[in-house]
């Protein structure tokens, strides 16, 4: 040992080249060392959940600037870097992501884009919601303006994803989560959208509740257009269900005796109450127009077109308002079709025969009350009667062979009289008409089938020159 102490006193000259080695090592290794440590630290933090993380290395000291999502996450990040081989010190400049109180997230849709605003709990959630919004709203621009914040309610992701699905059903509007309360406002894209959204909200995750649902439905529209040239009645728009669909189309078939009914109706939820009870009489009114359009928007009925004679316009308004369910409104823009040229008795008879060949005046079964479905047909008959003012007309009633003879005779007479009364009410002079009943004595078809009986139950118009 003494030798070693003695020799060591002479080791000092080597420290001069040693200082050179040290200087060279410091000069050449500092930068690569820092790069190496930065790379290792970044790799170590790859699986640690941080926002805005930035690593700077000076010598072997690592400075970590980052926003962490929990105190534990913050400690974990620092510990992870401390464990990186070669790191001497960690300058901890991490902080917690600010807490949002209340935690608000919202998705707003306007004409061109969907904007996400407010807070998102984690970068993964933020990314997931943006991706889901893009998928749900195919083609619509999605702008994510959310900030990361702590304080999200449990199951926030699930709720936000469900609500993004609902944004897709909106034309415009805003859906907001504030803590665990959900508010919705805006206009549904399609008929039934409001109901679909309300149904989907029942699946919100536990703990969430709907504070306000102010989603409005687009107007529920039903339209019918009577085209006298193409001889069609085109029904478009929506009906509440298949039963109403069948009933409305069948009713249109009865009311429009000479036109073909073109059915373009779709079934959808969201109809105003009393829809069928308003649409059926409104179709009856349309059947009395020579040309016209019926537009039902929510509870407002707009009827426009030409009636066939003066008195019809007033009758039509009065009857419709009486028939409508409560709360429904009528806007009738009805004018009178210019009177057609007068015709002589022969042409008049031909016109009556043509019209009655296309449709039959209907009555309540076994009674003489005229069925409302025949109003359109009667208006056409009245128009013809107006064109041949210089004639007298016999209105002749017939029945089928069901029931006894005297009863049928009486029924046929009463039915003929009911038609005459209707014509007189429309403004035609009573003196021109005679009501005659033949009971079942003049059948035009065999009475052994329902079809034959239906043909035998009829009213005929016989035109006579005035003496």
């Amino acid at each position, binding site marked *: 040992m003494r030798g070693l102490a003695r020799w060591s006193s*002479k*080791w000092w000259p080597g420290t001069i080249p040693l200082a050179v080695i040290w200087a*060279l*090592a410091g000069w050449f290794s500092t930068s690569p060392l820092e790069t190496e440590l930065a790379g290792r630290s970044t790799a170590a933090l790859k699986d640690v959940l941080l926002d805005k993380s930035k690593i700077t290395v000076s010598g*072997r000291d690592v400075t970590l600037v980052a926003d962490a999502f929990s105190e534990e996450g913050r400690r974990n990040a620092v510990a992870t870097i401390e464990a990186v081989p070669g790191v001497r010190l960690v300058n901890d400049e991490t902080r917690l992501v600010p807490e949002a109180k209340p935690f608000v997230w919202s998705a707003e849709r306007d004409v061109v884009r969907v904007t996400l605003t407010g807070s998102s709990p984690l970068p993964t959630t933020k990314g997931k919601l943006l991706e889901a919004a893009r998928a749900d709203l195919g083609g619509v621009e999605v702008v994510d303006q959310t900030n990361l914040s702590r304080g999200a309610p449990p199951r926030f992701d699930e709720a936000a994803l469900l609500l993004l699905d609902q944004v897709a059903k909106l034309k415009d509007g805003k859906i907001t989560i504030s803590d665990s309360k959900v508010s919705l406002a805006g206009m549904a894209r399609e008929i039934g959208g409001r109901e679909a959204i309300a149904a989907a909200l029942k699946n919100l995750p536990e703990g969430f509740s709907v504070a306000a649902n102010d989603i409005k439905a687009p107007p529920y529209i039903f339209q019918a257009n009577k085209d006298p040239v193409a001889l069609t009645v085109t029904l478009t728009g929506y009906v509440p269900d298949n039963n109403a669909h069948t009933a409305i189309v069948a009713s249109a078939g009865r009311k429009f005796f000479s036109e073909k009914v073109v059915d373009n109706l779709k079934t959808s939820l969201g109809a105003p109450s009393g829809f069928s009870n308003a649409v059926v009489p409104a179709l009856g009114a349309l059947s009395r127009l020579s040309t016209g359009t019926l537009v039902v928007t929510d509870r407002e009925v707009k009827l426009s077109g030409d009636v066939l004679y003066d008195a019809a316009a007033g009758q039509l308004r009065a009857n419709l308002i009486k028939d409508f369910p409560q709360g429904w409104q009528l806007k009738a823009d009805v004018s009178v079709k210019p009177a057609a040229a007068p015709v002589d008795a022969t042409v008049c008879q031909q016109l009556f025969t043509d019209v009655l060949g296309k449709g039959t005046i209907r009555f309540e079964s076994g009674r003489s009350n005229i069925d409302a479905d025949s109003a359109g047909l009667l208006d056409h008959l009245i128009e013809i009667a107006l064109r041949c003012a210089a004639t007298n007309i016999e209105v002749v009633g017939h029945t089928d062979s069901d029931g006894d003879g005297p009863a049928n005779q009486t029924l046929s007479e009463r039915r003929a009289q009911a038609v005459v009364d209707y014509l007189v009410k429309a403004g035609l002079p009573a003196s021109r008409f005679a009501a005659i009943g033949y009971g079942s004595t003049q059948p035009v078809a065999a009475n052994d089938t329902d079809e034959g009986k239906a043909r035998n139950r009829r009213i005929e118009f016989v035109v006579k020159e005035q003496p």
Partner: protein
Amino acid sequence: MMFLATFHWGWLVAALLLGFAMGWIAVVHRGHGVSKALAGWLGALVALLLAASLTHIVPGRVGYWLDLDLVIFAVYLIGCAIGSWLRNRVLPGPVSAA
């Protein structure tokens, strides 16, 4: 430390060889050695630097250079010790002090 050793092995080998050469020479060197007083001061300086390194009070790059210096110096001393010891073994007979 292992990291420093693997990262700087070239420089450390250079320091070790330098120390070995210096140790080898020191056994037969006839010049003046470091006086005891100076050796004491130098020892105190090294102890101070070692303490500064272990307590991490010197920050950043300067701290790194301090660590590097101490490691290189330690390796140099080991090299010196080995060199001197081997030279002493291979010399014939006892060598008297200069």
